[in-house]
C-alpha cells in the first residue's frame, strides 16, 4: 500500500540559495512538498559552481555541494532582473502555499514581491525570509556568508584549543543544521496552524538569532557574568573528556568519562596504564590532574587499534568511539551506511553520486530522496504549461524576451 507523503499537496516557491535556505526546503521536499526552486542563468545559485565537482565540463551541473541541498526539487529558470518576471512570480505565488527567500532585506520588496505583495495573490501564504541578521536593526543590510555567521555568533570563538587562535567547527555549521532546521520547524509550525485555522503568516528567521539559540547557555552564562571560553575537548563536568591518538595515520578515538563509575571502568580497561591516578575517584581530584591523565591515556591509546580499543572501553562501560572520516562513513559496512544514512542517485550530468538520506525516519510516512538535484530550468516548461496554464505563444514570448532563462 502506498502512503501519501505528509506534505504532499504543499507547494513551496523557493528563492533561497547557497547555504541554509536550500536545506530547509529540501527537508520539506523530502516529506513530499513540491519545491520550485527559482534561479536563472544570469544569477544561478553560486553553489552550482562550488566544489566538489563531478567529472566533465558542464559549468553549472556538476557540484556535489549544490546537489545534496537541492534533491527532490524542481527548477524554474526566471530572470528576476527582467520587469516581466514579477507577473510570473505573482502567478506562481497564487498557487503556492509557502514562499521562502534568503536575500538581503529589501530585495523582494524592490521587485514588488514582499509579503504584502504576495499575499494579495495568495491570502493564506506562509512567507519565510531568512536574512543574515534580521530585517531590522542597524546591521540588517550588512553582507556576509557562512563563515561570517560562525564568527558573529560566537561559535568560532568558543571552539578550539585555549592556547591557540579560535578555530570554529571547521565548517559553516549554522548553514548545515541549526538554521535550515529552525527554518523548517517554523514553516511546519505555520503549516500546522494554517491547517487548523486557515491563517497564513510571515516568518522572519534572522540567521544570527537562530544560531544563537544553539549556543543559548553560553550567552546566558555571559549574562550572569560567567562567560565560557574555548577549552579544546574538555568540559567542566567530566574528566577525562578528549580525543586521543590510535594506530594509523591521523586516527583518533573519542573518550568521555562522565562520572565516577565510568572512571572505574576506564581504570579496569586500561589494565594499569592509569595506575598513578587510581585513587582519583572524584571529578575534582581528576580535574586537578587532567593534563597528566590525558597524557598517560594518549600513551596507552597510541599503541592500539581504534576499533579494538573502542570495543574494549565499551565493554567496561566507558563512552568511546573511533573518529570516522567521510571515507569511513561511506565505506560498505559502516554503521551509518547500514542504517541508510546515505543514498546514491543518478543525475543526468553527474552520474551516480551520494546524498544525505532523510533524517529523521518516520515509521508510517517516511521521507526519502526521490530525485537527484534538478538541471537549471529543467521544469520551467512543464510548470508554465501545466501549473500556470500559459499558452505556447506566451511561453515562447517569455523565452524570447529573456524572462524564462
Amino acid at each position, binding site marked *: 500500500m502506498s502512503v501519501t507523503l505528509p506534505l504532499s499537496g504543499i507547494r513551496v516557491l523557493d528563492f533561497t540559495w547557497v547555504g541554509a535556505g536550500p536545506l530547509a526546503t529540501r527537508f520539506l521536499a523530502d516529506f513530499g512538498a513540491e519545491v520550485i526552486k527559482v534561479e536563472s542563468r544570469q544569477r544561478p545559485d553560486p553553489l552550482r559552481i562550488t566544489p566538489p565537482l563531478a567529472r566533465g565540463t558542464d559549468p553549472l551541473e556538476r557540484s*556535489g555541494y549544490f546537489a545534496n541541498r537541492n534533491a527532490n526539487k524542481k527548477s524554474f529558470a526566471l530572470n528576476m532582473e527582467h520587469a516581466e518576471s514579477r507577473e510570473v512570480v505573482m502567478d506562481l505565488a497564487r498557487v503556492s502555499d509557502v514562499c521562502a527567500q534568503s536575500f538581503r532585506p529589501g530585495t523582494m520588496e524592490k521587485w514588488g514581491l514582499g509579503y504584502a505583495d504576495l499575499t494579495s495573490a495568495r491570502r493564506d501564504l506562509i512567507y519565510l525570509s531568512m536574512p543574515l541578521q534580521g530585517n531590522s536593526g542597524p546591521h540588517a543590510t550588512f553582507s556576509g556568508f557562512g563563515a561570517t555567521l560562525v564568527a558573529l555568533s560566537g561559535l568560532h570563538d568558543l571552539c578550539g584549543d585555549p592556547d591557540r587562535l579560535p578555530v570554529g567547527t571547521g565548517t559553516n555549521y549554522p548553514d548545515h*543544521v541549526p538554521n535550515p532546521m529552525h527554518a523548517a520547524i517554523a514553516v511546519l509550525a505555520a503549516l500546522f496552524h494554517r491547517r487548523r485555522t486557515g*491563517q497564513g503568516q510571515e516568518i522572519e528567521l534572522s540567521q544570527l*538569532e537562530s544560531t544563537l*539559540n544553539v549556543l543559548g*547557555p553560553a550567552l546566558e552564562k555571559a549574562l550572569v557574568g560567567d562567560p565560557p571560553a574555548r577549552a579544546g575537548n574538555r568540559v567542566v563536568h567530566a574528566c577525562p573528556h578528549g580525543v586521543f591518538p590510535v594506530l594509523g595515520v591521523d586516527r583518533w578515538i573519542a573518550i568521555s568519562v562522565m562520572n565516577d563509575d565510568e572512571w572505574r571502568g576506564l581504570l579496569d580497561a586500561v589494565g594499569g596504564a592509569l595506575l598513578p591516578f587510581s585513587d582519583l575517584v572524584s571529578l575534582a581530584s581528576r580535574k586537578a590532574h587532567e593534563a597528566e591523565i590525558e597524557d598517560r591515556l594518549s600513551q596507552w591509546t597510541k599503541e592500539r587499534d581504534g576499533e579494538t580499543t573502542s570495543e574494549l572501553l565499551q565493554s567496561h562501560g566507558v563512552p568511546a568511539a573511533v573518529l570516522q572520516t567521510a571515507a569511513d562513513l561511506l565505506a560498505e559496512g559502516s554503521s551509518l551506511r547500514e542504517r541508510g544514512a546515505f543514498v546514491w542517485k543518478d543525475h543526468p550530468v553527474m552520474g551516480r553520486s551520494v546524498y544525505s538520506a532523510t533524517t529523521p525516519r518516520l515509521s508510517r510516512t517516511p521521507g526519502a530522496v526521490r530525485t537527484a538535484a534538478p538541471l537549471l530550468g529543467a521544469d520551467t516548461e512543464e510548470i508554465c504549461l501545466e501549473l500556470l496554464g500559459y499558452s505556447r505563444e506566451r511561453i515562447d514570448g517569455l523565452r524570447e524576451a529573456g524572462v524564462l532563462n
Partner: protein
Amino acid sequence: MDSLEGIRVLEFSDDLGAYAGKVLAELGADVLRVEPRLDMLNRLSIDPDVTVGRFLHRSKRVITLNPDSSLATEEIEQLISGCDVVIDAGSQLASYGIDRHAYVVSRPELIWLRVTPHGQESVEDQWSSDLTCSAAGGFLGLGGWPDRAPTRAYGDQTWRMASLYAAAGALVALYEREASGHGQEVDVAADEAAATGLENALQFFDLEGQVRKRVGAGYAEAGSGVYASADGHVFLMVGRLSTRAGWANLVQWMVEDGALRAEELRDAHWQSQDYRTTTEGQTTFREIFEGFSTRFGKAELYLEGQRRSIALAPINSPTDLISNEQLAARGFFGEFEGEIVCGPPYRLGATPWRVGIGEDA
C-alpha cells in the same frame, strides 16, 4: 493563539532530546518534563550546569514521579494516555519497563519521538556522549588544528542537532496526523544527525576522492582566516573566489590609512592563489595586515569593512554578543522571571514564539 496550542508533549529526556522539548514548548505546546530519578543519572547525559538546565527547561512544566518504581510506571502510563507526543530520549523511559511498541496498538494516534545516540535498532547497551557521537558521525574530525587532535564544537552540538531533527519530525507527524488521524514513530540517531553537518565532506570523497580534514583557524591562504584586532580577532576573507574585489578594497583602505607596507599588497603575485597559499605569502600578509588591524577594535573594523565591501567579521565572544548593537536594536534578549534570557530563533507573525509556560497548561 500559539502554533501548537492544545498539543500535549510528555518529555522523558536527557540533554540529547531536551532541546526538542524546548522548541515544541516555545511554539505553544504544553510540555511536561518528567525529571529522571537520581539513581538513573549515571546512564543519562545531563550537563549539571544550572544555566544549561534553565535554558533547556524554562518553558516546560516539570514533575518528579513516585519513588516507588511500580507506582511510577502506573503514573507514566496515565500521563501517556493523555498526551499527543512522547519524547523518549536516552534510557530513562525504558528503565521503567515502558514498551513503546505496545502503544502502536492501544494509542495509534500517539506520536513517539525516539532519540538515541545511534538509532533505535542499535545495540541498547552502547555507552555514548555528545563527543563520541560527534566522532561516530564524523563531525568532530573537521574542527581543530592539523598538528593536534581534532576539537569538538562547543555546547553539545550533536545533541542539539538530534533535537532539531526530532522537533522537525514531530511537526511533520503532527501535520500528517491532522489528515490521517494516525500517529507514528520518529526515529532520530545523534550520530546520523551529526553526519548531516559535514558540509560537503561526503561529496568531496565521493566525487573527488578527497578526505576533508581539519584546517586550523581557517583557509591556509593569505587574506582568508583569523587575524588579530586590538581587542581580539576578526575573520577575513579577501582574494578567494568571489571576494577578489575585497582584496583591492582592503588594500585601498590600508593605503589611505597610511599602513606600513600596504602598497606591497598590490604586487601582481598576490593575484595568484598559488602564491597566497605559500608559507611566505601567508606570513607576509599576516605581518602587514596585523600591523594595521591591531590598531582598531573588531567592531570598528567590521563597520568600516562593510562600508568598503570587504568580507570581514568580528569573532565575537559571548560577552561581545550580550552588548551587540544589532541584537539590542531588535530586542533579542528578553526578560523571564527576573532573568535576562536568550530570544527567539524565529519570529512568527501570527503565532509568536514565547518563553515560559502557557496560561492554559
